[in-house]
């Protein structure tokens, strides 16, 4: 049976992994290459590798770091941050990325999703979305979660799938960094409308949050950052507990 995936996310700035509460107050954690290799050994099913401030200041990913990660880590690698056109796709794919995640770049230019899917295949195109409640509705935010758009999150998810996104990363700004659990309500609203795999992000604070997630919503994967970076939760322990709870995982 297909296993539910556990995915550590490495947010990178200046070649280092960072993670902040509600996207602010970034703290340095570790060397991305070392951390990526460590996670792979611990049983991480995949890694997501973001340059979280790339879209606001136009900075490109440090492809050297990416290349080093890809040379040492043999699990699927998704890369995002500063992906605005097909040249950006090409740049990161050549450095060993398997999937490319678009966020603000697709908000600015929605046709990028379809163009990239046509050129590299749906399996390569991940639509990543930062979502926050505004007046009781789920709205998409751009630029690392700082700028509100008028886009409805459920409609955006559907649009992404119809245009060739092979997977969605859905990050809740409301729960991100708070460690109070995933945003089940928002994830249910999105999963009800799409058939492509969905990766849940934002809010993981403990093992029980992952169990709740997989028991409550038909997501394919749970993503976490600080919960793993600070060694609070060991991926091996997490997977053992998921298995005990009757959830299919790769051990």
């Amino acid at each position: 049976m297909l296993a539910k995936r556990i995915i550590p996310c490495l947010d990178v700035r200046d070649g280092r992994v960072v993670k902040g509460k509600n996207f602010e107050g970034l703290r340095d954690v570790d060397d991305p290459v070392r951390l990526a290799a460590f996670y792979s050994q611990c049983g991480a099913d995949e890694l997501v590798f973001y340059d979280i401030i790339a879209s606001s200041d136009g900075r490109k990913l440090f492809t050297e770091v990416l290349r080093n990660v890809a040379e040492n880590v043999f699990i699927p690698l998704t890369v995002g941050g500063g992906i605005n056109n097909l040249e950006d796709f090409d740049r990161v794919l050549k450095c060993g990325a398997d999937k490319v995640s678009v966020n603000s770049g697709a908000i600015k230019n929605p046709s990028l999703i379809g163009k990239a899917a046509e050129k590299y295949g749906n399996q390569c195109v991940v639509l990543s979305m930062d979502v926050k409640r505004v007046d009781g509705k789920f709205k998409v935010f751009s630029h690392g979660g700082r700028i509100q758009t008028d886009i409805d999150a459920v409609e955006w998810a559907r649009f992404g799938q119809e245009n060739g996104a092979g997977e969605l990363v859905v990050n809740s700004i409301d729960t991100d960094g708070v460690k109070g659990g995933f945003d089940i309500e928002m994830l249910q609203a999105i999963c009800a409308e799409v058939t492509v795999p969905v990766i849940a992000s934002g809010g993981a604070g403990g093992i029980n949050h992952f169990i709740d997630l997989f028991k409550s919503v038909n997501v394919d994967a749970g993503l976490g950052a600080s919960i793993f970076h600070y060694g609070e939760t060991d991926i091996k322990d997490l997977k053992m507990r998921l298995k005990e709870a009757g959830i299919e995982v790769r051990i």
Partner: protein
Amino acid sequence: MIAIIDYGVGNLFSLSSSLKKIGVQSVVTSNLKVIERAEALILPGVGAFGDAADKLRASGLADPVRQLAKDGKPLLGICLGMQMLFEKSYEYGEHDGLGLIAGEVRPLADYISNLKIPHMGWNSLNIKIDGCPLLKYTREGEYVYFVHSYCGVCRDKSNLVATTEYGTDVTAVVAKGNIFGTQFHPEKSGDAGLKILKAFAEMAR
């Protein structure tokens, strides 16, 4: 030396890095002389079957690769590269493959319903035929990484070495003598995948 056949399809960086990791020399090449001299061949591939098959033929490598495999050189097709070992595919039309494995490639949607397509993620191997040299180091139930929407259907079940369960028994590993194919990506399957590449490299001579 293993030649990774470069016909302009897909990302070969991970594949060459993973071989390097297990201490196996490889070269990414479209040069026929290099391919002929190599001790074993890997046929990679991602994307759509028709486009990839056209590119392989346009590169002039399709016939030589088929002949080298028939002459006994170990060949490993990965993902779409495995699918291209079959006789034909029905992905957006009807396209001829290399015809090294009897059978054809059909949409997963013909066999399953109520499951997400593509079949993407880690799934476990059910070994159907023991003793395949490619799976020398592989245990029943090991997880490997799949990404595909079409599947190989073997006409001769003696070629179907391993399957994975996704609504139905999906072809995961095929083998016929020196010719092997994996629907999953060994270069993205962690240690389980590296063991499969190691077993293949040991057949190089």
